[in-house]
């Protein structure tokens, strides 16, 4: 076991079940799921016609989000259809990014072969999680575009044979569309992972004063990144449902 800064890019494997690796980021995802689902279950059961402060706050947030989504998508029906996806992306990422700085995360662990293995690691610092979310968002966006416009009309956005410029633009669109997978996943992974490393380095060199304000800042960044991921999903859905002749 060595002392000092240990930065590991990939999530550490704690064990495996039927050949499926169990990593510390997977365990923390389950913890976040349990918190989120538990809260949703008890909150959903305690709804009252005359709301308390928490219910009023959540209802206010829901109404605000729905109104904003209706404005962006130009349809209340579409907003209601995509609200669960966008809201779940935000809530799941935001919760993970916030509990990342709670005591025990990264500090509780196992000693295996003289190596410290933390039991919990923020899934947003594991590319498997961010890539999985990016793929879900990507497929949702593409499927929405195909369902709303029809396959051939949607394909016209990327394969435009009317002119050379149109063809080049279509090709760029296609590449940038595929690039979303990378940008979606690496943006979230990079920001949160870098924040964690920053706090780690600050804790190593200036352990008494710097880590706490940096953690506060990183918690804010975590919220921003959750919002960015959710908002980009929403905006790309909007772009996907715009017909090629209306796009410019």
């Amino acid at each position, binding site marked *: 076991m060595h002392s000092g800064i240990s930065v590991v890019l990939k*999530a550490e494997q704690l064990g495996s079940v039927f050949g499926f690796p169990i990593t510390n980021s997977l365990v923390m995802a389950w913890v976040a799921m349990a918190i989120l689902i538990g809260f949703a279950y008890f909150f959903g059961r305690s709804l009252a016609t005359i709301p308390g402060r928490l219910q009023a706050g959540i209802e206010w947030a829901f109404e605000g989000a729905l109104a904003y989504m209706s404005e962006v998508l130009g349809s209340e029906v579409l907003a209601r259809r995509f609200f669960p996806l966008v809201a779940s*992306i935000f809530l799941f990422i935001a919760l993970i990014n916030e509990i990342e700085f709670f005591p025990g995360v990264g500090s509780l662990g196992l000693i295996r072969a003289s190596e410290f293995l933390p039991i919990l690691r923020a899934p947003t610092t594991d590319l*498997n999680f961010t890539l999985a979310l990016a793929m879900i968002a990507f497929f949702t966006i593409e499927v929405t575009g195909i369902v709303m416009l029809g396959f051939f009309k949607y394909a016209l956005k990327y394969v435009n044979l009317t002119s050379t410029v149109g063809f080049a633009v279509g090709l760029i669109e296609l590449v940038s569309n595929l690039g979303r997978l990378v940008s979606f996943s690496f943006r979230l992974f990079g920001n949160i992972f870098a924040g964690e490393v920053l706090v780690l380095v600050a804790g190593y060199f200036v352990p008494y004063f710097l880590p706490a304000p940096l953690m506060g800042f990183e918690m804010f960044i975590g919220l921003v990144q959750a919002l960015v991921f959710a908002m980009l999903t929403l905006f790309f859905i909007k772009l996907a449902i715009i017909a090629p002749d209306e796009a410019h």
Partner: protein
Amino acid sequence: MQQLFSVFGIDWHLLLAQAVNFGIVLIALWYFLYKPVLAMLERRRGIVAKGVEDAARAADALSRSDGEALSRITAADEQAEDIISAARESATREKTRLLKEAEARALAVARDAEARANEAAARQRRESEQEIARLAVLAAEKILKKHHD
């Protein structure tokens, strides 16, 4: 590419597991949170709309009952005025009748008094005439007696 996957620990098992995790979160939140909260918002919107509708209906009913009350008051006023004017007319008629009756009664009393006075005067006159006649007879007797003597 394989090296990149290895460095970042990308494994299709983990990708699948995290995707399933998110799917579970999405379904659970939809069922336990979004559905009931959105239903509650819808229900409250319905209650508010019904409240506004009820308030409009109540205001309408109030203005209608105000109008009805006003028309009833106006009718009652008119009726009261009719009753008062009828009472006034009746009182005037009664007054005139009573006056006439009183006048007639007074006239009858006056006539009766006059008749009685006339009768008394006639009786007095008759008695005076009888007395004068008696005194004249007595005086004539005295004179005759004096002449005889």
